[in-house]
């Protein structure tokens, strides 16, 4: 084996570090197979099979009521809180079935964090919003530990500089965009591996949206992100893999680039070009 890189090796290295990453090159973080979800008699999701790649952003798109948020909530078992909801099929994270009886659902929800459409900070100080999770999970030993973790989380969410001088103020006193970043910091604080985002920017202005999108791009270095969005352009901008849901079916999934320039299914084409009647 040669010591120096041959031109071919250099070329190959440049290609793989290229921005347009192929989803298949990453290992699978979340593996869903034939997932069916029922709300009572209503068959809301049908035979959903999808692999969510690690350290990438996967977006779920589709018209209202198609099941994308329902499926998102399956990944951290939030649907357990809905009495009439029944989930069948397999969802594995790191090859472990998350619906296995031995799984501690509280731990699962720390490992798989969630950010919602409407920012929902706790009615606590900014500091305590972040500190709450790590404290109850026993992740921090004392005040110094907690201070460091709060600062680290707020820095990663791009919020530290704006709030470092007012950590004791209520989280609800922040602007919409700041509140959402606070919620992201809160999710990050408990060291998740996957972050689920359900239309995280719907309630935000364009500048706040842009900052969250930038943050998502940075976060995927360390986390696996799944985002539900109504904005086609946002999905095209932030994600590497896209899945299109329609009436409970997973119609098409693939590289984001390909889905938005040359989708295979007519339903996907009609939806993303605004031709749905």
């Amino acid at each position, binding site marked *: 084996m040669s010591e120096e890189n041959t031109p071919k090796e250099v070329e190959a290295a440049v290609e793989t570090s290229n921005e347009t990453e192929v989803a298949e090159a990453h290992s699978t973080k979340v593996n869903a197979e034939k997932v069916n979800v029922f709300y009572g008699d209503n068959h809301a999701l049908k035979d959903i099979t999808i692999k969510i790649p690690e350290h990438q952003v996967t977006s779920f798109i589709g018209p209202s009521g198609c099941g994308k948020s329902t499926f998102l909530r399956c990944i951290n078992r939030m649907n357990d809180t809905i009495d009439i909801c029944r989930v069948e099929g397999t969802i594995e994270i790191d090859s472990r079935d998350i619906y296995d009886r031995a799984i501690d659902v509280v731990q699962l929800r720390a490992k798989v964090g969630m950010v919602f459409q409407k920012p929902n900070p706790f009615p606590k100080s900014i500091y305590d919003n972040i500190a709450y999770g790590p404290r109850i999970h026993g992740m921090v030993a004392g005040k110094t530990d907690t201070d460091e973790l709060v600062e680290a989380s707020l820095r990663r969410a791009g919020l530290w500089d704006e709030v470092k001088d007012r950590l004791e103020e209520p989280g609800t006193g922040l602007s919409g965009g700041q509140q959402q970043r606070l919620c992201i910091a809160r999710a990050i604080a408990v060291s998740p591996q996957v972050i689920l985002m359900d239309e995280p920017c719907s309630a935000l202005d364009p500048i706040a949206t842009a900052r969250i999108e930038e943050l998502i791009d940075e976060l995927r270095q360390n986390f696996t992100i799944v985002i539900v969005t109504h904005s*086609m*352009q946002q999905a*095209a901008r932030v994600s590497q893999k896209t899945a299109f849901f329609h009436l409970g079916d997973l119609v098409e999934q693939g590289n984001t680039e390909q889905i*938005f*320039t*040359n*989708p295979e299914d*007519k339903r996907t*084409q*009609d939806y*993303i*070009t*605004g*031709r*749905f*009647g």
Partner: protein
Amino acid sequence: MSSTDHIVKSFDEELSRLSDQISRMGGLAEVQIERAIESLQRRNSEEAAHIIEEDMRIDELQVEIEELAIQMIARRQPLATDLRATVAGLKIAPLIERIGDYAKNIARRTIALNQNPPIKPMFTIPRMGRMSRGMVQDVLDAFSNNDLAKARAVWERDAELDDMYDSLFRELLTYMMEDPRSITSCTHLLFVARNIERIGDIATNIAEIVHYQVEGQPLTEDRPKTDEASVTVVDNN
């Protein structure tokens, strides 16, 4: 894929307008090619001057089409087939404008040629002219109708045009060697033939764009090409 209407009707109207304007621009260019060849054959300098003036209308359409495509990108953020159609329009407009320029250039050469006595009758040039005009017409039809087969046929037909150019090149070289007084005229004719051959090349570029629009992938094959003229040598003996 068949096209259903957009929920927002004005989007459909804009896409139609883009396509219509390209067809109009193409139609003008085709007429310019035809008239240029006619004015050459008939040695009609007045007709040639008219062609040179008319080229402005093609240029104006290019500006309009590009403006429309840019507005659509800004307003509609088109995706999938809409995006490819908009980008195709943006790419095709300047190509048609160049076709118009080549036709205008032929008209200019006609005026120059008419200063000198006519040389031997040239059958090849009008044949080439008709062929290139046909290619432009067919490829723009293919664009309007997303007709991949038709576009591909144009793409392949260019080899024949290249062959005609190659043999005309040799012919003109021998004329010039036989009679040096014909050098000026023959050189102009060489340029005319070259312009027509370039029009054919542009038609194949448009065919490749049609391929991208329909298939969503660029055409990666090498076009069958027989460009021997650039390496042709005719013996002086």
